[in-house]
């Protein structure tokens, strides 16, 4: 009984690693966030399968070639951000910043492409359930892309604080996770909206 000792003051108790919980919390958040998309996806599928006239009058369907290019850009940015993270872990900050910036640019290109696509469409938000779900899904996803870019910008700035990224920094990891999440959501979205017509 007396051989065991209680942790002395100042000794690392389990609770001291508060920042370590950030990633746990963030992953829980992402799981929860995915349910919103799941709700929108199932709503889309339900409305589409039960619709009498799915497409609004005068709309033939969606053009898919340009969105496909956008998709390829966005999905490859998952690769570049992984590379950036790889270099960060090896403390090659220049390469980290380069690939990080590249992922940001690819995300921005995706958003630009989507804006161009939106402006060329001949239906609006209120054009039946097709228009509503199309803009809701792409818009809500686009909001996440924009958030991702902002987060990446923040992490980029933080990388210039000396010594900030040596060790326990979880922001980069969380941001990159978020970015992969946004990509996976887009792939499902692309299949649902553009491939399944």
């Amino acid at each position, binding site marked *: 009984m007396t051989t*065991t000792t209680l942790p*002395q003051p100042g000794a690392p108790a389990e609770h001291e690693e508060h920042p370590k919980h950030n990633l746990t919390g963030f992953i*829980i958040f992402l799981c929860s966030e995915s349910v919103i998309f799941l*709700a929108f996806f199932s709503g889309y599928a339900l409305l589409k399968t039960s619709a009498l006239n799915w497409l609004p009058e005068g709309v033939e369907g969606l053009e898919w070639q340009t969105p496909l290019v956008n998709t390829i850009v966005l999905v490859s940015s998952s690769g570049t951000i992984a590379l950036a993270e790889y270099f960060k872990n090896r403390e090659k900050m220049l390469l980290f910043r380069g690939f990080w910036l590249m992922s940001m640019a690819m995300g921005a290109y995706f958003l630009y492409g989507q804006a161009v696509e939106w402006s060329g469409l001949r239906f609006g*938000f*209120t054009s039946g359930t097709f228009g*509503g779900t199309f803009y809701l899904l792409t818009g809500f996803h686009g909001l996440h892309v924009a958030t991702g870019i902002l987060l990446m910008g923040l992490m980029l700035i933080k990388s210039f604080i000396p010594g900030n990224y040596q060790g326990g920094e979880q922001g980069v990891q969380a941001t990159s996770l978020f970015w992969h999440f946004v990509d996976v959501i887009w792939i499902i979205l692309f299949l649902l909206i553009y491939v399944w017509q």
Partner: protein
Amino acid sequence: MTIATFPPEPKPDQGRSRYFGFCTDAKVIGIQYIVTAFFFFLIGGLLAMVIRGELITPQSDLVDRAVYNGIYTMHGTIMLFLFIFPVLNGLNNLLIPTMIGAPDMAFPRLNAVAFWLVPIFGFLLMASFFVPGGPAYSGWWSYPPVSIQNPLGHLINGQGMWITAVALSGVSSIMGAINFVTTILRMRAPGMTLFRMPVFCWTALAAQSLQLIGLPALTGGAIMLLMDLTFGTSFYRPEGGGDPVLYQHFFWFYSHPAVYVIILPVFGVFSELFPVYSRKPLFGYLYVALASFIIVGLGLIVWVHHMFPSGVAQWMRNLFMVTTMLIAVPTGVKVFAWLGTLWGGKLRLTTPMLFCLGGLFNFVFAGITGIMLATVPVDIHVSNTYFVVGHFHYVIYGAAVMGIFAAIYHWFPKFIGRMPYEGLGKLHFLLTFIGANLNFLPMHPLGLMGMPRRVSSYDPEFTFWNVVASLGAFLLGVSIIPFLLNMLSAWIRGPKATHNPWNAIGLEWLLPSPPPEDNFGEDVPTVISRPYGYGSGQPLVEHQDEIERRLELMEASA
């Protein structure tokens, strides 16, 4: 070996002003939640009094019909989103860190933000009483097409404010859930494995997982509702190709599990309190703990039982009838475990114990009417009648609110440091138990006779039971007086509480009353056995004798 700093010297500077500002201490936030919740409880209760006042006569004579619609809508909304959820989050804040030996929540700032959202959306909801057209009037579930009407055409209208408030409540609850789950998973005391965790933490973990899975669906559905209402989309508008039943799916996918978000922590309270007041270990700890997660799994696949009359396919009705009935199995396991705990125990009928026993009684009754409602033909027969209203008031008030009162009386000494008065407490219990049964039991015959819910006038043949129900409701209204009196006077000048006035086993009872700001601080005791070792004489933690001796010394010198 020595215990260097525990228990710490009490700090005199912990003033009451902390309760009125942005404070990140979970114990302060917990009390902020509970006090705020009871403020709204009084408002929601007042509305209930108006409803029952209106229904004491068959004619619609107390309030205007349109006002009546707004009143029952707001009564339900306030009681759920501004009372039950906040008060439970208050308990979570107080109990989870102290029960698992953590100094605070995992994300204290997020915790404070989650709390402060409550008064904000509460204010928004209250403000909707004063906008042109009045508050939302489409019932607490806000089904379209009623909820997407905007007859006055104002951009800011009661329904829009309702949706925004509910969405904000969802954001707050998600923040809370992330915090509670992370805290339980990552911040337990050394030696406290998952299967040494108090059942309250198990049920909190289960309930908060449900929040994380269910709430986003409601939020998504609510966003679409707001767009239909405000921007003229047609997700739920049949004339634009939309489907109003889609909203019902979104709504009930969350709002059925929401019942478990409410009742699971109350199961946790029962599981904590029955062992204390019968001096026996919890019967079947492992099964009680695991049953919580079986309820989570099943609870996510029963929502269509709210939609049996909504034109869903027959196979769906059959399927969801079966899943709903299956929930009786894990719930039954828990009920038998509690009965097994009570069996042959040395029962102490304190106020918290009385509330637990009363709550359990009401819960069993609600369970039986629940099975009746799960049966498709019965459900279709009594759908939208007072039978349903009676059923869920037994669950929410009869079981959950009574369990919450039990928890408040039981842990009040721990977190306030003073003892509530037993006499007033027992009076409160008596009035609550009689009032609740008098209020909600007559709703069942009324429903079977065919009285629809949400009406302000009714056929005179329903008068008798309505008068009884209204008298019960007024009794419930009166029952709050001894409660508030008890809480206020005990808080100000109640007798000082020792660290363990109920002679209970648990980490929280090894802390001074009230606990210091960071609970155990660095000196978290190592847990060496399962909880509820009543009668076994086995210590819960290493060096328990020494910790208790120090606490007693501290109390003697104070």
